[in-house]
């Protein structure tokens, strides 16, 4: 218990030491409340249901602090900065907004992007109305810490009826220059009525650097908005990523979300979707690809609060070597959310006997006129299928590669940005057995 008490005070001290005098009073109030929430509970132990399968010791026993200045990007990292074609790019290096590499100036009509600091200065603006007002309702240690400690981030607004063609690509890079660095990016995305747009959020980090990235992205979709949201995580082999995506949707709003965990020592994304108005829909799909020594985790909370909403969740995992993954998905249907149509599916493919996948579908249904389904499997490749391929001349490695690729690639098919899909496919191919043969056949 000593250690926990100590950690509380470490982040509290950081909080108290910082000069926040320039920040508006409303934000100060929210920050204080968040810091207190964290202090009251500390980091979750493995007795806390939502955290019982997540190994956090290497995160909670370290004191991560923001970088004073951004490190230098290696050429390999530099080459991976731009993935999404024709995107408005916003870059963070070691948790710090890089205005040089970002394109905050050249924005299409209907799109407004400001740094967190700039947005906080506006009275009665979208930040004051929404920032930390949605995600912070959750009892979540890393949301609380992010709210208390974040100084870096952006506020994205899409105007009423606007449909900017260009996607927005947020890139978070952690360099090798830094040890025990914390990155607390805060992103607020506000889609006004009938707006339509796509945001891609990518994370990457240098191997060998033990850092913590704990982003919180709040998405507010007003009535009839259509939001595409893509998350791609490939942290360095010692990097920890504990992220939250929190969406709140009004009537007839649609959110299409896609998330891929492709690397990192510990990667966890908590996805909250509140379907607050009638007729809205959420479509989430996720894929996690794990190499030996990695841990990946998706927790989802899909909450139907209104009638005639639909939600679909499909998550797939491919686990190699000694790796471990968690999928934990809740479908909550409130009493008034009649005519709900909710589906959830989680499939795991274990490529090694040492891999371990946990799959926890959870249903809480209080309405009576609903359609809810869920399915969950953990299994190996179908040996009969492997033999079938081999008996026609395909080598064992290639057969396994082809079957694994087919299993995972299904999750990339809904990615509507071709440049991102190609990039994700490369990541998938590079992790497969029989890569060369599979590649040739595409």
């Amino acid at each position: 218990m000593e250690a926990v008490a100590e950690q509380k005070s470490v982040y509290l001290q950081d909080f108290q030491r910082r000069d926040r005098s320039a920040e508006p009073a409303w934000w100060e109030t929210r920050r204080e409340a968040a810091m207190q929430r964290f202090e009251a509970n500390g980091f979750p132990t493995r007795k806390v249901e939502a955290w019982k399968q997540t190994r956090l010791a290497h995160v909670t026993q370290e004191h991560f602090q923001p970088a004073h200045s951004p490190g230098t990007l290696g050429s390999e990292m530099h080459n991976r900065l731009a993935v999404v074609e024709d995107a408005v790019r916003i870059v963070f290096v070691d948790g710090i907004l890089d205005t040089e590499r970002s394109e905050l100036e050249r924005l299409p009509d209907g799109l407004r992007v400001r740094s967190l600091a700039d947005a906080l200065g506006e009275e009665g603006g979208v930040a004051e109305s929404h920032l930390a007002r949605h995600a912070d309702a959750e009892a979540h240690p890393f949301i609380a810490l992010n709210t208390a400690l974040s100084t870096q981030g952006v506020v994205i607004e899409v105007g009423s009826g606007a449909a900017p063609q260009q996607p927005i690509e947020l890139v978070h890079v952690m360099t090798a220059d830094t040890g025990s660095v914390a990155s607390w990016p805060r992103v607020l995305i506000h889609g006004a009525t009938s707006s339509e747009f796509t945001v891609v959020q990518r994370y990457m980090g240098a191997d060998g650097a033990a850092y913590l990235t704990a982003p919180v992205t709040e998405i507010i979709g007003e009535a009839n908005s259509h939001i595409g949201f893509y998350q791609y995580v490939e942290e360095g082999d010692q990097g920890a990523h504990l992220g939250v995506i929190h969406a709140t949707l009004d009537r007839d709003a649609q959110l299409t979300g896609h998330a891929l965990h492709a690397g990192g020592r510990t990667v966890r994304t908590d996805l909250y979707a509140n379907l607050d108005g009638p007729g809205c829909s959420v479509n989430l799909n996720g894929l996690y690809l794990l190499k030996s020594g990695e841990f990946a985790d998706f927790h989802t909370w899909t909450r139907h609060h209104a009638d005639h909403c639909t939600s679909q969740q499909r998550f797939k995992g491919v686990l190699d070597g000694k790796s471990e993954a968690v999928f934990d998905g809740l479908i909550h249907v409130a009493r008034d959310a009649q005519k709900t149509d909710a589906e959830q599916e989680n499939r795991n493919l274990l490529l090694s006997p040492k891999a371990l996948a946990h799959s926890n579908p959870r249903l809480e249904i209080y309405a009576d006129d609903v359609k809810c389904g869920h399915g969950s499997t953990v299994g190996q490749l179908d040996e009969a299928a492997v033999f079938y391929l081999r008996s026609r001349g395909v080598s064992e490695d290639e057969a396994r590669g082809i079957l694994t690729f087919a299993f995972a690639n299904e999750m990339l098919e809904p990615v509507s940005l071709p440049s991102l899909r190609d990039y994700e496919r490369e990541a998938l191919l590079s992790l497969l057995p029989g890569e060369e043969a599979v590649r040739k056949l595409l």
Partner: protein
Amino acid sequence: MALLEIRNLHAAVEGEEILRGIDLTLDTGEVHAIMGPNGSGKSTLAKVIAGDAGYEVTQGEVLVDGVDILELEPEERARAGVFMGFQYPVEIPGVSNTYFLKAAANAIRKHRGEPEVDAMQFLKHVRERMELVQMDESLLKRPVNEGFSGGEKKRNEIFHMAVLEPRLAILDETDSGLDIDALRTVAHGVNSLRSDERGFLLITHYQRLLNYIVPDKVHVMVQGRIVKSGDKQLAVELEESGYALFEEGAAA
């Protein structure tokens, strides 16, 4: 040298002996039929020849063109020209039929030291073979066997055979469950591929197939042994008398 020579083949599953000494010689250009009651070991024989690791060969040899293939991996046997049409073809979700065939064709070509298939030429070849077995074009793009009807699956096996042009084709009950039209197509596929360069081992439960594919020899398999061999007339006799006669003999 015979195309296929099986000598005193014994095989077991989980310690239980299923093949109990099979001898069979098939020359190039020949078609042999193997008939026998359910559970006599026909599929086991096919799978042992194809290299299914679920079966343990405890004795004997299987020579293809004089080479003992029992030491080879399944894919190496396929590349040496062995093809098995599965009694129960496997569904391969997410892998289209064309993709599968390209992978197989390239693997076989690589083994022969030939360059990879030219995409255009391969497609042309595939189309011709589809016509041969009158298979619907839509089945090319669909994942292998997924959602195929029983008849479509069997036709697809013949289609794969026609595309890959094996030296030795073992067809395990490809005729079972087919209506007469589908049966004719399957038979047409086999008959068009019959040549002096090739041999066929047809495993069948019903004599009807042999009205369309005339075999050079018919073998009766009972309880893991070939208890009688003869010409096509034997199949007709079997249809009339049933297997009971042979089963008594085998048990003795």
